[in-house]
């Protein structure tokens, strides 16, 4: 058989495999929804406690019609994106400062380790008191993402091949030039990995922040639904949240691909 024919056959097999996986994934979701609906309809479980897909769907439709869906989704999204941007920018800035002044990094190292290990959620009430009900959500979102960003990026910067930096020094490059032309491009895969980790973490921070203090947003809806014992409201919010987090993750992955291709970087899996 010719190489082309072999390659075509190989590609067909690969394509079939991908389709089979996608089909199995869809079937799994359908089976889960079906079982959930059936279990609630037949009273295998108490629908008061579990709600059911059809009720979730109705809630979704009526919330969309009344417009409240968009308000809550909008609030959560806006807080997440803003928190994400602030967390990344702040983390990036501090990581650069630590790279620039290694002595500073050496001094701050144990504090960063402790801050990184500390469950940031414990800070929620403090933010609430300091920042009030509206801004404490941002405090939570940034707190939860910024330390990881600093630690990840600084580790990435420090791992840049010392001899690539040396090449720059032989040309008499300034520290700023070394940062811009070697350290940042060489660590872009790490920056991308940090983005991926952070989008999820920021969402956690926002939801927890909303649990504690908010008057709107999906976290607020979940807490409210729990308090008034409306499980369909809780479940609907969770489903929306799942969709949002998946979309945000996809967006970051897509951005990563784009940047990697533009800058010819290896995509880190």
């Amino acid at each position: 058989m010719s190489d082309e024919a072999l390659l075509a056959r190989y590609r067909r097999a690969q394509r079939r495999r991908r389709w089979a996986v996608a089909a199995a994934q869809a079937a799994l979701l359908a089976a889960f929804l079906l079982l959930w609906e059936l279990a609630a309809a037949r009273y295998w479980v108490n629908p008061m406690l579990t709600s059911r897909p059809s009720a979730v769907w109705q809630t979704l439709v009526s919330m969309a019609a009344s417009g409240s869906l968009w308000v809550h989704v909008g609030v959560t999204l806006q807080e997440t994106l803003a928190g994400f941007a602030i967390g990344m920018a702040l983390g990036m800035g501090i990581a650069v400062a630590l790279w620039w002044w290694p002595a500073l990094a050496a001094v701050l190292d144990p504090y960063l380790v402790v801050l990184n290990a500390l469950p940031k959620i414990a800070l929620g009430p403090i933010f609430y008191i300091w920042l009030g009900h509206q801004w404490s959500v941002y405090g939570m979102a940034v707190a939860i993402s910024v330390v990881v960003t600093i630690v990840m990026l600084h580790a990435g910067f420090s791992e840049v091949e010392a001899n690539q930096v040396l090449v720059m020094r032989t040309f008499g490059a300034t520290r700023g030039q070394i940062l811009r032309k070697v350290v940042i491009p060489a660590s872009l895969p790490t920056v991308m990995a940090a983005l991926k980790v952070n989008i999820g973490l920021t969402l956690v921070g926002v939801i927890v922040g909303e649990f504690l203090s908010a008057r709107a947003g999906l976290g607020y809806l979940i807490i409210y639904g729990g308090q008034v014992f409306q499980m369909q409201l809780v479940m609907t919010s969770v489903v929306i949240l799942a969709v949002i987090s998946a979309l945000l993750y996809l967006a970051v992955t897509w951005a990563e691909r784009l940047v990697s291709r533009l800058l010819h970087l290896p995509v880190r899996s």
Partner: protein
Amino acid sequence: MGRPRIALEEVSLTYLTPRGATQALAGVSLAVYPGEFVSIVGPSGSGKSTILSLIAGILQPTAGRVLLDGDPVTGPSQRVGYMLQRDYLFEWRTVTENCLIGPEVQGQDMARARGRVARLLQKTGLTAFADAYPGQLSGGMRQRAALVRTLAIDPDILLLDEPFSALDFQTKLMLADEMWSLLRTEHKTVLLVTHDISEAISLSDRVIVLSRRPGRVKSVHEIRFAGPERPIPFKARGAPEYSGYFHRIWAELDPPGEVNRNVG
């Protein structure tokens, strides 16, 4: 001969690491005059790369002085081009962009630099790979790209650390001839480190032999060929004087005393 372009006066260097002190050089003195081509040979670990790093200003001597045109070296200079022992190309830049990093950093006229890089890539047979990324190059091609990157800033002093070591024999001879002629016509001052005695003899006006670590200058060999003009390296390898030099330097070279991490 006037004042040396490069001079080391009783230079010693000890590397300090948390695990201990390693004396790499012990009182090395040498001089290279403007337009000269000088080679350093010596066993692995004898401090050859260390000498180049001192002249490039990225290391400071523990004792002694390193001078460029009589002035002590305090840091990297735009007049000095240093080709490291390994290429360390930037994977995110094309070959051309890699070669332009020096002019870019030094704020040189980029249009002129582009022209120079294009010419050098052609001389080194890399034109077809000008827009390729380092990941697509063979080891020998990467080394040639690193050589072009060093020459791109048009320095008048060149420090070359085994610039031809990753090349096959044929390419090595051809490229050595090309580079030698180029550097001669441009009157560059060159200090070349190599393990290859034939390469050292065929290219150089003088060959400096270093002792085993800690490195000292063991002997210096003036390389002269009969005739009005210096033969090109390829011809020099066949000249009657060649084998005499080869045997003398060969006899001077210490066998490597320890298996060194830096080999290759």
